[in-house]
C-alpha cells in the first residue's frame, strides 16, 4: 500500500511540473493553431540559463528561474515575429510546413547549445536536493514538493491573467476566432508574439523546476516535447486547466507503469494513452467534463 501511495504521489508531483511545460504548449497551440515541436528545446534552453546562473553566479535554481523566464520570453517573441508569423504568408502544398519549421528551430536550438556546452551530462546539486520528508511510511522528495508548489502557483496566476486582464482576454479571443478578434481591434500579430513569449517563459519555468531532478544535456528537449504533447492532447487543446489535469494523469500513469510494468516500458504507457485519447476522446478530458 505504501508503495502504491508513494507511486501515486510521486506521479502527481512530477505531473504537476510537466503540466507547466504543457500549458505553455497548449497556449501556443490554442492561439496559433500550430504544432510546436521546438517546445522541448525551449525548455532545454531555459534549463541551461538557470544552470548557468547556478554554476557561475551561485544563484539558486528557484531564483534563477526568474532570470530564465524573461530570457525565454524574449527568444519566443523573436521566433514568432521573424519566423512563424512570416510563414503564414508563404504559399505551399502542405499545411504541415509549420511543423517542419519548428523542427528546424529545434535543431538550431539543440545544436547551438551543443556547440557551447558539448553533450556532457550536467546536474545542479543544491543543499536540499536529496532531502526528503516523510508522510507516514512514504518519503517525498523536497525538490519535487517545491517544484509542484511553484507549478501550481504559476498555473493559477496564468489562469487569472487569462480570465481577468485585457491582454489575457485578447489572447483568448484570438484563440477562439482570429478573424473576429481582428475585427474587434485586437492586434493579432502582437498577440501571437506575446503568446509565444509567454509559452516559452512557462517552458523555461517548468524546465528550471525540473532541473534539480534531472540530468541536463542538449537532447533532453525531445523528452519534454513528447510529454507536453501527450498532456496537451489529454487535456484538450488550448485548455489551461485541462493541461494541469492531463499532466497529473500522465504523471500517475507513468509512475504506475514504471513501478508495476517495467522501467523500459514507462514511456510506452504514455504514448498508448495518447493514441487512445486521440482516437476515442478527441476533445481531451475537458470534453468529458462538459458533457
Amino acid at each position: 500500500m505504501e508503495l502504491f501511495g508513494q507511486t501515486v504521489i510521486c506521479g502527481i508531483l512530477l505531473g504537476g511540473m510537466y503540466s507547466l511545460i504543457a500549458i505553455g504548449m497548449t497556449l501556443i497551440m490554442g492561439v496559433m493553431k500550430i504544432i510546436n515541436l521546438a517546445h522541448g528545446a525551449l525548455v532545454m534552453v531555459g534549463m541551461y540559463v538557470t544552470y548557468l546562473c547556478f554554476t557561475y553566479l551561485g544563484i539558486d535554481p528557484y531564483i534563477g528561474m526568474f532570470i530564465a523566464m524573461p530570457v525565454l520570453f524574449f527568444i519566443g517573441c523573436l521566433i514568432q515575429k521573424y519566423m512563424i508569423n512570416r510563414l503564414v504568408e508563404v504559399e505551399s502544398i502542405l499545411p504541415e510546413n509549420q511543423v517542419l519549421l519548428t523542427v528546424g528551430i529545434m535543431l538550431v536550438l539543440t545544436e547551438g547549445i551543443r556547440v557551447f556546452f558539448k553533450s556532457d551530462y550536467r546536474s545542479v546539486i543544491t543543499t536540499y536536493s536529496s532531502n526528503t520528508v516523510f508522510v507516514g511510511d512514504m518519503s517525498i522528495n523536497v525538490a519535487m514538493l517545491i517544484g509542484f508548489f511553484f507549478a501550481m502557483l504559476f498555473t493559477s496566476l496564468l489562469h487569472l491573467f487569462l480570465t481577468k486582464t485585457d491582454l489575457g482576454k485578447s489572447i483568448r479571443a484570438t484563440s477562439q476566432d482570429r478573424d473576429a478578434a481582428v475585427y474587434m481591434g485586437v492586434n493579432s500579430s502582437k498577440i501571437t508574439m506575446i503568446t509565444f513569449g509567454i509559452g516559452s517563459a512557462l517552458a523555461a519555468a517548468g524546465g528550471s523546476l525540473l532541473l534539480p531532478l534531472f540530468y541536463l544535456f542538449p537532447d533532453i528537449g525531445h523528452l519534454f516535447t513528447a510529454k507536453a504533447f501527450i498532456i496537451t492532447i489529454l487535456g484538450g487543446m488550448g485548455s489551461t486547466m485541462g493541461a494541469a489535469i492531463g499532466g497529473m494523469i500522465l504523471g500517475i500513469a507513468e509512475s504506475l507503469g514504471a513501478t508495476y510494468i517495467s522501467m523500459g516500458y514507462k514511456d510506452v504507457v504514455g504514448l498508448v494513452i495518447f493514441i487512445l485519447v486521440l482516437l476515442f476522446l478527441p476533445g481531451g478530458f475537458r470534453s468529458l467534463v462538459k458533457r
Partner: protein
Amino acid sequence: MTKRNLLMTIAFILVAVLIPVFIKAPYQMHILILVIIWAIIGTSWNLLGGYAGQVSFGHAAFFGVGAYAAGLLTFHYGISPWWGMLLGPVAAAVVSLPIGVICFRLRGPYFALAMLALGEIFRIVFLNIEAVTNGAKGILIMPEITSKMIYYYIALGALGLTLAVTYLIVNSKIGYYLVSIREDQDAATSLGIPTTLYKNLALIPSAFFTGLAGAFYTNYVAFIDPNIVFNLTNVSVMVILVVMLGGVATTWGPTVGAGIYILLGEVFRTTLGSANVLIFGVLVCVIILFVPNGIVGELSMLKQLVSRRKASVSGGI
C-alpha cells in the same frame, strides 16, 4: 509520358548505370548508395505525404520493421539477409495495415502526431523485447558481398522499381483520387471517393518500399539497433526534410532532395566539424521559409519545361 520526358528518363537511367564506371573510390560509392537509400524512402513517403497529403512522422516504423525483418532472419535462423529483401517489405506492408486502420481515423496534424507516437512505440518496444530483437545491443551480420558496386546496382534497381510503381500509381485513377483527398477531403468524400480506402492504398505501397529500403540498409550497413533504424529525428523527420527540399508531390523531387541533402550533409560534416547539424537546422528553416515546395516544385511553378530538364539532370548526379 511525353516523348521529352521519356528521353530524360532514359538519359537518367544511362547516367545512373554508368556512374560506377567513372567513380570507383569506396567513399564516393558509399555516398551514392546512401543517396539512393534516402531517395527510396523519400519517394515512398512522397506517395503518402506528398500526393495524398497525409504527413507521416512515423515512417521510421516501416523502415525499422523492414530492417529488422532482414536482421532477425539471420540472427535467429541463419538465413541469408538477402531473403529479407523479400520479407522486409512484406512485413512493413503487413504492419501498415492496422496502422492505417487506426491512424486514418484522424486528420491533418492529429494524424501526424499519432504516427509520431506509433513510431516511438515501435522503437521502445523493439528496445525492450530483448529475447527477440537483442535489444539495444543490436544485430550484427556478416555481409557476404564486399564490393560496393554490387550494392550500388541492387540499390539502383530498388530505386527504379520504387519510382516506376509510384509513377504508375500517381498517374492512374488512384493518383487523382489521392490528390483530391489532399486538396479537400470533404469534397472528395461528397463526390463518392472512399477516402479511407484510398489513403490505405497509398500507405501500403509507401510502407512496402520503405521496408525495402530498410531491408537493404541491413544488408549494406550490416549493423542495426532500434535507436538507429527507428530514430525519430534521423529517419522519420529526415525523410520529410528530404522530400520538402526536393519537391513535394513531384516524381523526381525526393531523388533530387536526397542527393542534395546527403551531399550537403557530407560537405558540412567535413568542413564545419561539430557545428554541422547547427548549420543544417538553419538551412531547414531557410528552405521552409523561402522554397516551401522544394527545388523541383518551385522551379516548375516558374518555368515548367526548364524545371523538368534540371530535375532529371540533377537527379542523376
